[in-house]
C-alpha cells in the first residue's frame, strides 16, 4: 500500500504550508474511498487535484472542510491539519472551520434570493458586519473579487438564479470569498460552464491566488496545467503523485501518471 503513495516533501517550505494531511482514510460505509493520503497544500498557491472519475479527488477535497460530515455513512480517519490545528478534533466546530475554508461546487448553486442576499448570506450568519454600510461594502468588495461587479451592480435586487451559468458560478465564488476565508476549495467549478465562462472563471482563479490558498478539483488536464502551480494525481483512492504542475505534465515519475496524462487511462 505505502508504495502507491509518494512522500511529498519536494521543496515544501514548512512556513508556507496551509493544509497538511497525514495518513488520511475516507470510508463510505464499507467502501474505502481514500487510502493513506499524505499531502501538504501551500498558501497563496493554486493546487489542482486530477485523476479519472471516481478516483476520490472530490471526496478528499470535501474532507478538507468537513463537508463529508453531512453524509451520514461517511467516515474520515487520519490527521488533517489547518495551520497546525487538527480540523477533526472534537472541539472544532465545523461551522467555524467552513468559514475559514470556503467551497465552490460543481454546479452553480445560487440561493433563490437576490444577488445581494446571496453574497450577504455568509457575512450575516457569521456576524462579519456591524451595520448596513459595512455589509454593502463587503458585498461590493466580494462581487469585485468575483469579477462580476460590473455585470450586476445595477441589479443587486434581481434573483441570483436569473444569471447565466458563468455569472452564477462567479457569483458563487464571490459568495464564498465574502466570508473572508483563507482557503478556497473548488470542486470542478467549470464542468457545467461553456468555454467562454470557463475562461472567465479560470482568469478569476488566477487572481484569487494572490490572497488565498486555492484547491481545485478538475477532470481537465489542460485546465490543471493552465491554472495551477501544484498538481496532485489521484488514482483509485491513492494519491499517486504530487509535484509542481510543470513536472507532473512534462516529467512524471509514476507510470500511472504518465498513462493518465497521455490519455491511455482515464
Amino acid at each position, binding site marked *: 500500500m505505502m508504495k502507491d503513495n509518494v512522500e511529498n516533501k519536494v521543496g515544501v517550505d514548512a512556513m508556507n504550508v496551509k493544509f497538511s494531511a497525514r495518513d488520511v482514510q475516507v470510508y463510505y460505509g464499507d467502501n474505502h474511498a481514500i487510502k493513506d493520503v499524505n499531502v501538504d497544500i501551500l498558501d497563496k498557491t493554486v493546487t489542482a487535484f486530477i485523476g479519472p472519475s471516481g478516483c476520490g479527488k472530490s471526496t478528499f477535497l470535501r474532507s478538507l472542510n468537513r463537508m463529508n460530515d453531512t453524509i451520514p455513512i461517511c467516515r474520515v480517519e487520519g490527521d488533517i491539519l489547518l495551520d497546525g490545528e487538527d480540523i477533526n478534533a472534537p472541539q472544532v466546530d465545523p461551522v467555524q472551520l467552513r468559514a475559514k475554508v470556503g467551497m465552490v461546487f460543481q454546479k452553480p448553486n445560487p*440561493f*433563490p434570493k437576490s444577488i445581494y442576499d446571496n453574497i450577504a448570506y455568509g457575512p450575516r450568519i457569521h456576524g462579519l458586519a456591524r451595520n448596513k454600510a459595512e455589509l454593502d461594502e463587503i458585498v461590493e468588495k466580494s462581487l469585485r473579487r468575483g469579477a462580476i461587479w460590473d455585470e450586476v451592480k445595477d441589479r443587486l435586487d434581481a434573483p441570483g438564479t436569473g444569471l447565466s451559468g458563468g455569472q452564477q458560478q462567479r457569483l458563487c465564488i464571490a459568495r*464564498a470569498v465574502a466570508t473572508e476565508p483563507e482557503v478556497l476549495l473548488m470542486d470542478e467549478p467549470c464542468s457545467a460552464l461553456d468555454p467562454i465562462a470557463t475562461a472567465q472563471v479560470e482568469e478569476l482563479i488566477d487572481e484569487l491566488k494572490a490572497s488565498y490558498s486555492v484547491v481545485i478539483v478538475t477532470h481537465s488536464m489542460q485546465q490543471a496545467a493552465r491554472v495551477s502551480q501544484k498538481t496532485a494525481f489521484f488514482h483509485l483512492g491513492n494519491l499517486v503523485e504530487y509535484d509542481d504542475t510543470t513536472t507532473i505534465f512534462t516529467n512524471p515519475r509514476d507510470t500511472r501518471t504518465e498513462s493518465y496524462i497521455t490519455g491511455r487511462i482515464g
Partner: protein
Amino acid sequence: MSPLILLAIVLALTVAGYVMGRQRAVGSVDDVRKLHSLPNFYGMNVAMLAFVPAVLLLAIWVIVQPLVVAGQVRGDIPDTLYETRGELSLVMSDVQRVASGLDTAIAQGVLAPGDIEGLDATTVRDTLGGVGVALGSDVSEEVLAAALDYRATSNTGDWVRTVVVLVVAVAGFLYAYLGTSGTLRARNRVETGILILLITAALIAILTTLGIVLSLLFNTIEFFGLYPADEFFFGTTWSPSFGGGSQLGILPLLWGTLYISLIALAVAVPIGLFAAIYLSEYASSKVRSIAKPMLEVLAGIPTIVYGLFALLTVGPLLVGIFGDGGILGVGWMQGGTAVMTAGLVMGIMLIPFVSSLSDDIINAVPQAMRDGSYGLGATQSETIRQVVMPAALPGIVGAILLAASRAIGETMIVVLGAGAAARLSLNPFDAMTTVTAKIVSQLTGDADFASPEALVAFSLGMTLFVVTLALNVLALYIVRKYREQYE
C-alpha cells in the same frame, strides 16, 4: 318486461353472438391462419355489437322514461290543486306513490288488473294501506286519475322499450354476424370499441363534476327564487324554521367555518411543518422509518372517529379546564361542543396532511442548495431557515392552502364537536356551527325538498364547493409552478 329480464335476454344474445361469430369466421376459411384476426376477435365483435348499443339504450331509457312520463302527467294535473311549484311537486310525489302502490296491490293479488279503471278514489287509501303503502292523506279524484294515467303511460313505455331494445340487440347481432368473413378486420373493430369504452370511463370524471355543478346550480337557483340572494350572502342571522319566516344568512356559518379552520391550521401548521423539517433534515433513517408511518396513521383514521373523540373526550376535557368550576376557574366554556374543541381535533387530523406534503416539498429542494449553505459555514438550522424554507415557501404555502380547503370542507368533526348554534362570536369556547354542519342538518330528517329551508343547503353546498375549488386550484397551481422550478 322488467329491465332485468330484458338484460338477461340481451346477455344470452351476446353469448350466442360470441360463439356463432367465432364459428362463422373459422368456417369461412380452410385454414385458421388465413383469418385477418384471431378467431376470438370475430366472436367479440358480434358480442360487442349485440350487447353495447342495446344495453346503453336500455340504461338511458330506464333513467329517462320516468322523467318524460312525469312531465306528461304533470300537465294533466289541474292547476286548482296547487299554487306554487313546490306544491306541484308534492302532488306529483302523491301521484307516483299511488301509481306504485297500485302496482304493488296488483302484484300481491289484492286488485285485479281489470279493477283499476273502476276504482273509487275514496277507497284507494285503505286499499293501498292494506298492501303496506301508507298514504299521508285521502286520494282526490284528480290525483287518482293522474296516477292511472301515469301507470298507463309507463306501461306503454315499458312495452315500447322492450321492443326497441330487442330490435336494437338483434340488429346489432345480425349486422355483425352477417358481416363476419375471413377478411373482416375484427381486431381493429373490437379495439376501437374498447377504446371508446376507455374514453367513456375517463369521461365519468367530467360527468361527476358536471353532476355536482348542475345539481348545486339548479337547486341554488330555485332557492334564490324563494329567498333573496343578498339576504343569504349578507344576512347575519341564521334561524331556519320550517314553519316559515326563516332567516337564512350565511355569514354566521362562514364565520364559524373560518374560525374553526383557523384554529385547526394554528395547530396543524406549526406541528406539521416542524415535524416535516425534523423528519427530512435531522432524523436518522431509523427514526424516520418509525415516526413517519406512525404520523400517517393519523391520516388513515376516519373522520367519524375524530368527531367522536371531539364530542366525548376533548370537549369534556376542555370544559374541565376552561369551563365553570374547571381547573382554571375561568368559566369561559359552557358546553363541550365549541369552536376550540372542533378546531383542536381538526388540527390533529391535519398534522399528517401538512407534514407529508411539506416533507415532499422540502425534499424537492436540491441538495446543492444545502451544500452551498454548509460550504459557507452555516449551521443546519440556519440553512433550513434561511435557504431551504425560502426556497420551499411557495410549495409550503400550497400545502397550507390544501390543508385549509380540507378544514373548510370537513364535516363529521364539526357536526359532532362544534355545536349547532349559529352565532357571530369571538370567544373560541362558544359553540358555533359551520357551513358543512348546516348542510347536514338541513338535508337530514324529513325535510320537504321544495322548501327554502332545505334548498338553502344546496346554496351552502355551492358556496362550499366554490371556495374549496378556488383554494385547490390555487394551491395546485402554486405547487406545480414550484415543482417545475426544480425540474
